[in-house]
């Protein structure tokens, strides 16, 4: 399928050697929304959860310490920028690299929380993210071997051979695992159950946007 059918007219390209980023109305919109959200996160403060205290009438506030707050804000801003970059990238391997970067930042954002259940599920997610590097990069390399190119502009003009379909299925599995969609949701959904709302939300938002973009890329490659 062509860019024009999926994302609207081509507004321009950003050539960086063999990696050519391209801008269509769809990708530009996603890019700007993510950057605005990242800006909102960078200037916001974390929420404080109020929990009932056992055997007493008072409440306890679950707060985020200042050091941890700074670390989380830094990581979530980088995560926002990385997912914004994945929105306008025009190269298959570039996209998988952005995906891997987002995966490791997602673990980093919750790596310093005090709740053991959250840490446990982050550990399980880390296992999945580690396994995902095989289908992500393997899928991209199989597509490269069978077509001889990684540029989406060239790939969208090529017919899909069985090997390309296999590479795309591998990539899809990697993206599903890394962004925590349907059968693999549990480990990622448990990671949100901790104070520090706006920073935790970027974990969720980046995977949502990545899924939209991944659908577009797979359509470009397969049709």
């Amino acid at each position, binding site marked *: 399928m062509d860019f024009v059918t999926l994302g609207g007219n081509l507004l321009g390209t950003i050539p960086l050697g063999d990696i050519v980023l391209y801008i269509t109305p769809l990708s530009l919109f996603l890019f700007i929304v993510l950057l605005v959200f990242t800006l909102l996160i960078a200037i916001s403060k974390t929420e404080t959860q109020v929990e009932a205290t056992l055997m007493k009438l008072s409440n306890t506030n679950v707060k985020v310490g200042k050091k941890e707050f700074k670390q989380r804000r830094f990581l979530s801003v980088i995560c926002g920028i990385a997912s914004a970059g994945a929105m306008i990238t025009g190269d298959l391997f*570039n996209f998988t690299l952005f995906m891997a970067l987002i995966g490791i930042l997602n673990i980093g954002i919750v790596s310093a929380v005090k709740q053991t259940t959250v840490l446990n599920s982050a550990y399980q997610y880390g296992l999945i993210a580690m396994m995902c590097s*095989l289908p992500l990069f393997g899928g991209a390399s199989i597509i490269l071997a069978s077509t001889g190119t990684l540029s989406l502009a060239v790939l969208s003009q090529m017919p899909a*051979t069985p090997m390309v379909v296999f590479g795309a299925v591998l990539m899809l599995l990697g993206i599903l695992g890394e962004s925590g969609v349907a059968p693999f949701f549990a480990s990622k959904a448990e990671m949100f159950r901790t104070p520090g709302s706006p920073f935790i939300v970027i974990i969720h938002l980046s995977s949502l946007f990545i899924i939209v973009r991944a659908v577009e890329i797979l359509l470009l490659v397969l049709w």
Partner: protein
Amino acid sequence: MKIGKIWNKLADPKTVPRLFAFCLGIILILGLFVPMALNPDQLYTRPAPQVQIDDGLPIAPYDRGGVVLKEPGIIKAQFPENSKELGMITGYMSPLAEWVSSISPYFGTSIYSSPGGLIDEVLYYTRGFDTILESSILMMAFIIASWLAINYTMDRRDIEKDLKKAANDSANVAREIKINDEKARAKQLRRDN
């Protein structure tokens, strides 16, 4: 089994990596049956196997010709209009590599033979953005690990109590060892006499 029970099992984070590994294994096994057809028109062209070795070139399977900064070597780019100076440093080798290749015909097959400037052109010229991303993934991993290491193992507030406890423990262990040692020595002495 009812679908509700399956969903309940999937909601346990512990089962998710196993399920993922299982799915991945099945797809990889299915991949064995996919017909493999490589594209002969690959981006980074190379001569047929053994051709350069039969010719007796000193940097054999990696010789791509070209004179540094004068004549481009054999290299192809996806979008040649974006990298006009491509191939100019393909033939570059470090002084050490040049010396080794001048005295040995097997330089190209040894562990310290890099394809010279070719890697640099791929990494920093045609696909430079990928290299930036790769190293930033590594940097983020180091930032997370070092922050955790500093704040949760070194910079702990109750470290003095722990140190005192550790010192006590090791002193206890040392005392026990000493007592056992003396006992054994006394026993040995008795047996000798």
